[in-house]
């Protein structure tokens, strides 16, 4: 029989249903079949036999992470929390996060914050024009590689949530790295208590991207995160010279719209590829202010209103009609 990961779905459920607890200080790396030093069975599982950490894990305090109530208290002044997810990298999560932030902020009564949990490749500082809060802000040299394993990244995300004075805020947007791993699990377990409005899933039209995005939606379902909807980014490109529209990343399987239908979640809209969005991001400017007349801008505004509606807000109060 061909080998396969038959045990995967169960262990996923296990990881998600085990709320994050304090990990004890280990004296050796976790072995391959480690149940996780935070888990109920830490130090007692079959694979713990012979592990140098066994005694430490077995005697570690069990129960939920005592920091979670602290985090919940810290975030109590924030009205809405939205995650920006995508299984795939480079589809425009950070760009969309910063655009969403700029759009929410056009209502002068709204205050908006962004938390960038992409520890290895943070883009938000550059896009918001504050190249100098993410881990990026803590690096001595902006090109330094952050070569961290999972537990260290979880620690930092916790610190972000626990130690940052978030204060009163209308919206907190949480940008995430590609994939379905440590950062996603941590954000989910830390924010669960304080309540998340939901997740916006970003994709590009081609099947290679949709494949990974499908996994992310599967993750959201398993983790009990509400999916507000799918945004299709880089959808079509209009030649600036002859205005001919080309599908650069072809939707051979129907793109984001078909995926939304297949997974029975709202489709929030398609945003065309406009090189000026990238340029505005490179310079840390707001695309809405720089190119208000562009088709991409109109499409984005539509998407922002739909995000608002899915959150149960009035589209008008999120982003007034022009």
């Amino acid at each position, binding site marked *: *029989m061909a080998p396969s990961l038959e045990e995967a779905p169960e262990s996923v459920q296990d990881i998600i249903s085990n709320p994050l607890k304090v990990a004890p200080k280990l004296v050796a790396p976790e072995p391959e079949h480690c149940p996780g030093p935070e888990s109920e069975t830490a130090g007692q599982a079959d694979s713990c036999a012979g592990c140098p950490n066994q005694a430490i894990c077995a005697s570690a305090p069990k129960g939920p992470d005592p920091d979670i109530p602290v985090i919940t208290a810290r975030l109590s002044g924030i009205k809405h929390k939205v995650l920006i997810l995508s299984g795939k990298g480079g589809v425009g999560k950070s760009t969309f996060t910063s655009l969403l932030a700029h759009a929410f902020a056009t209502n002068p009564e709204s205050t908006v914050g962004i938390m960038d949990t992409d520890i290895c490749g943070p883009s938000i500082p550059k896009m918001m024009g504050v190249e100098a809060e993410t881990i990026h802000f803590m690096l001595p040299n902006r090109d330094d590689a952050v070569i961290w394993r999972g537990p260290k990244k979880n620690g930092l995300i916790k610190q972000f949530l626990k130690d940052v004075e978030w204060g009163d805020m209308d919206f907190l947007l949480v940008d995430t790295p590609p994939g379905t791993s440590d950062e996603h699990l941590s954000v989910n377990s830390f924010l669960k208590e304080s309540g998340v409005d939901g997740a916006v899933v970003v994709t590009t039209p081609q099947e290679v991207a949709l494949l990974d995005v499908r996994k*992310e939606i599967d993750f959201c379902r398993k983790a009990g995160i509400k999916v507000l909807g799918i945004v299709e980014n880089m959808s079509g490109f209009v030649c600036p010279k002859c205005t001919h529209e080309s599908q650069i990343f072809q939707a051979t399987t129907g793109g984001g719209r078909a995926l939304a239908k297949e997974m029975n979640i709202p489709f929030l809209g398609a945003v065309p590829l406009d090189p000026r969005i990238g340029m505005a991001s490179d310079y840390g400017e707001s695309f809405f202010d720089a190119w208000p007349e562009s088709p991409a801008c109109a499409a984005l505004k539509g998407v922002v209103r739909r995000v608002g509606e899915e959150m149960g807000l009035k589209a008008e109060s999120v982003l007034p009609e022009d």
Partner: protein
Amino acid sequence: MSLDKVKHIVLVLSGKGGVGKSSITTQLALSLSLAGSSVGILDIDLTGPSIPRLFGIESAKVTQAPGGWIPVPVHASNPSANIGSLSCMSLGFLLRERGDAVVWRGPKKTAMVRQFLTDVLWGELDYLLIDTPPGTSDEHISLAETLLKNALPGQVAGAVVVTTPQAVATADVKKELNFCVKTGINVIGVVENMSGFVCPNCSECTNVFSKGGGEVMAREFNVRFLGSVPIDPQFVMLVETGRRPVYPVGTLVNGQPFNVQNGGDLAADVKDPRLLVEKYKDCSLSSIFKDITNDVINVVEGRVVGTAIA
């Protein structure tokens, strides 16, 4: 160990996601195969494996043999046409359903990467290309550690680093270059992907994601710039549907008219039964990759001196 008969190991890295690591890996593999080398691809992107899709072998399964896993064959070698064999290994082949999320924390990912490096029966290979997820975390650390411990001296040829031209991407990719410095991985060179899109209607080239960032970055880090690869929707169609690439008469690639070997019959929608590697020769990107691949071969096989990052 399973890597014993592999001559050269080449990593394909990028700090940034979605820049085309997997499509660059695919095309390097096809070009190396067209140059007569036997090639294996190991996809260590565990949460988002793309290699099975790109080769159109998503439903393939890995075979368990005594002593390890047999990778999935893409095509066999064909000495008369000077085409080398190509096979792949990816977590995608181990999943029950293609949409299943792989929700793993670090230690489990580390163990899987290690297993991929030790338990796959590659056999004799000229090149093993390792496609990686974005970032510099568990998978990468595990890869670097395992190779450092298990690879033969000189076996790890180095890394091809992929970027797109815009500053937001190069900012992340610079981190990857620093990762290579810290872990002692030689950088073979930088490839700039998605550099420009040629409108099929008016042939105007638009730099959709700006241009030149990759070359500037390579210069800044004093590493070889292997070349820029434009966006070619025909390549996407080729891998997604198996349709043979067709270009309008007068299409220029690198300033040269691009000639399709098989003449200009435009009946491209007809299912073309040839192998992907053969159809790829009709893709405009194949001539660009021929040059990139030659450069890579020259550096790896020591015909030119590679550049170390100071």
